[in-house]
């Protein structure tokens, strides 16, 4: 019930909020979607992808190409972008998901580095110059779309926690070999999880592209998104339903407050949060809330003590 109230409040923002607030909201909501998408592959399946920005970019370009080059409607563009992401996730996923933890992270990181360069050679995508989309000046609409996407993403994660598929993912995360000998088709499950996270990232990218009306390889495949989505998911609590949402919204708000002073402070802020959070609260806010009540400040010291050399 509290949840429905929260959603209602969020949905009502465009009516009583300022323009700036709405714009902040769109950005924050889309980041939350990215964080949730990452949560599926990183939080639940345990494969920390450092390259989901690739799917975000594919979604952006999907919508841009569909609308600017083929004159398709926005919905068609979103579908195209999502399909691109899903196909890419499967093609890249099958070889790359065979890699152990940090090798997978490195491979996805390298992929993210390279995507902008690849796309800047594609004529259909407007090469280096980028594409301009038909303008639509309706921030509240984009806001509600973003909110809807976040609700969908969160519902998907919730479904994960109650379904056989989700259990399989968790088993893979906790002990992949053990999961396999118990009958989990690990390759299939990991790839599907990767595709799910890719599709949500792509949809977020698609909405963003239409909203800002212009994309080019650098902005669409923005590598900085990776650090943001990961830290938001991890800060809030990876492998939980609401962790990424809480992490995304709270960190976005904090960053906004700080960076009204100096613009590059935002990036610095995220870096520092990552470092501090991973050292003192590696299991995220969700775990802090749960354990702080019994342990108090010792919780943080304990995290350090159990992990230090």
């Amino acid at each position, binding site marked *: 019930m509290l949840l429905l109230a929260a959603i209602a409040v969020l949905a009502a923002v465009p009516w009583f909020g300022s323009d700036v607030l709405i714009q902040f909201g769109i950005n924050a909501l889309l980041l939350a979607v990215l964080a949730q998408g990452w949560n599926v592959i990183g939080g639940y399946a345990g494969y920390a992808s450092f390259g989901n920005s690739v799917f975000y970019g594919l979604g952006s370009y999907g919508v841009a190409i569909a609308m600017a080059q083929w004159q398709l409607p926005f919905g068609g563009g979103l579908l195209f972008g999502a399909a691109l992401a899903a196909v890419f996730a499967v093609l890249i996923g099958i070889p790359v998901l065979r890699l152990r933890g940090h090798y997978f992270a490195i491979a996805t990181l390298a992929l993210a580095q390279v995507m902008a360069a690849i796309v800047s050679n594609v004529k259909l995508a407007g090469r280096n110059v980028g594409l301009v989309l038909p303008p639509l000046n309706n921030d509240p609409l984009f806001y509600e779309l973003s909110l809807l996407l976040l609700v969908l993403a969160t519902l998907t994660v919730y479904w994960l926690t109650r379904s*056989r598929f989700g259990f399989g993912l968790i*088993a893979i995360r906790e002990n992949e070999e053990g999961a396999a*000998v*118990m009958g989990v088709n690990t390759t299939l499950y990991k790839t599907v999880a990767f595709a799910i996270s890719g599709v949500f990232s792509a949809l977020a990218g698609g909405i963003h592209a239409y909203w800002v009306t212009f994309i080019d390889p650098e902005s669409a495949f923005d590598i900085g998104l990776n650090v943001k989505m990961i830290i938001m998911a991890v800060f809030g609590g990876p492998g939980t339903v609401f962790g990424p949402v809480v992490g995304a919204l709270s960190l976005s708000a904090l960053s906004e407050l700080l960076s009204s002073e100096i613009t590059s402070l935002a990036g610095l802020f995220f870096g520092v949060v990552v470092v501090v959070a991973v050292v003192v609260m590696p299991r995220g806010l969700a775990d802090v809330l749960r354990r702080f009540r019994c342990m108090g400040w010792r919780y943080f010291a304990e995290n350090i003590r159990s992990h230090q050399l």
Partner: protein
Amino acid sequence: MTAMLEISHVTRRFEGLVAVDDVSFMLLRGEILGLIGPNGAGKSTLVSLISGTLAPSSGDILFEGRSIVRLPAYRRARLGIGRTFQIMRPFPGLSVLDNVAVGALFGRGGGQVQMSKAREQARAQLDFVGLAKNIDQRADELGGPGRKRLELAKALAMKPKVLLCDEVMAGLNQVEIEDVIEVIRKVRNEGVSVLVIEHVIKAIRSLSDRLLVLNHGVKIAEGDPGRVLSNQTVVEAYLGKRRA
């Protein structure tokens, strides 16, 4: 007596070390086959070869007459091969109940589709192995003996036709060992064929229908437990090693 499992001239090499050397034997339906041998004899490697975690360098493995050597681990699980791990690695973040539920969700034939049914089955298995009181604990909070039982329960929840038990008795005291023996007997009575790997000789002697001995990857004896254990080669292999 039909063979559930047939290991046919299986060899496994690791960079110059031959862990399993041309081993052949059968696991018959409804029997408890014991597998013993000194440390490093290749017993756990053999289990990994059967469950599909490792592939043999040469040789064939047949399950109910069909070759499974090319099947990935999860397919073998779905056919009905279950195993416990010697170094127990439960799913640490999950509760005891949910650990076993994974087995029920994904076991033979693909397992259950519904979470609730899977949890029901898990409860039943935990009851069977005697862990009914611990179902809500986190798996990594269980002590050693509890974890052994959890391993068993997880494998049993898969409804296996063949169960591979990898040193389930290590580190247990006399009473706990008797309990485990009871459970394995019950399992066999339910129609499961069991391959038990053990160091605890006394226990395995009373439990097994037949006994198999491995040393340095080579099968050195097979047959009736009494005869095998008094076999000269077997005794020599164990000279100086600990005996229960």
